[in-house]
């Protein structure tokens, strides 16, 4: 059920990418898709009633290992979030450059000006 809601979020982002014409709107849709994928990966590692994967003083390793959530997806998603920010900055700079060249954010408008 939770997985399905995440998938709905992903589909909304995909719909935006496919149908929208404004470049900033496309960037925003891509950001939403990225959020959905990150959330899905973290959801895969969740354990019912689990604790955070950070050990405390005086905790037995066996006890910790039996209760913690999966730390591997969390580590991978952590890098993915920062990379997402870098890619977002790259996309926004492309948008600004296109706006400079054509004076508009609209894709179809750009095509017409070029031809």
């Amino acid at each position, binding site marked *: 059920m939770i997985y399905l809601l995440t*998938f709905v979020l992903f589909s909304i982002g995909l719909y935006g990418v496919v149908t929208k014409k404004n470049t900033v709107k496309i960037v925003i849709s891509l950001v939403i898709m990225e959020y959905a994928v990150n*959330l899905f990966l973290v959801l895969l590692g969740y354990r019912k009633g689990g604790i955070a*994967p950070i*050990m405390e003083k005086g905790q037995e390793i066996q006890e*910790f290992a039996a209760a913690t959530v999966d730390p591997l997806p969390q580590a991978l998603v952590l890098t993915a979030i920062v990379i997402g920010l870098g890619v977002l900055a790259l996309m926004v700079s492309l948008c600004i450059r296109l706006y400079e060249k054509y004076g508009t*954010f609209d894709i179809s408008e750009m095509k017409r000006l070029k031809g």
Partner: protein
Amino acid sequence: MVEMLGLLLIFMIIGAVIAIETKNLLSSVISVGAVGFGLSIAFLMLRAPDIAITQVVVEVLCLVILIRATISRDVTGISCDREFFAVVCAAVFLIAIFLFGIKALLALPEFGTPVMLLIKSAPTNTYISEGLKQTGAANIVSAILLDYRAYDTLGEATVLFTAILGGLAILRRKAKKEVTQIVEDKE
């Protein structure tokens, strides 16, 4: 717990729909911010404090960058004429992907049972039980990020570096001068 997560996700879906469908670019950017902060709360509920902190801070920066990109431009409103054919194609394509997704998601283990419980030889089991002894770090996420899977972090640093190089190349000053000259020629 699961119900709360579901409610949060529904809130995020509503935010995403508003962000994509609204006509004003600024309110669209702010709706994305709402989705991102909801995502951060969801990470906190899923017992991932590391990502929750990172998501909050990255979301702030993301909003600042997007607002700087859109608000200084004169056009904040956008036209919304759509081609009927394109929308129909997109809808059919999305329905096909959605049906496939339902089939694929049903094959996954139930929510709340991570893969490491099903497969005893999964690498996560080693990381959890041996992590403190082998690396000495109490934060297992940190241990995985910078010791077991440090190549990943190296690749991440490279990608960030390349992103800046790309941004610099796209927005460099030299190209700016050429555009100015063209404008002057027209005048």
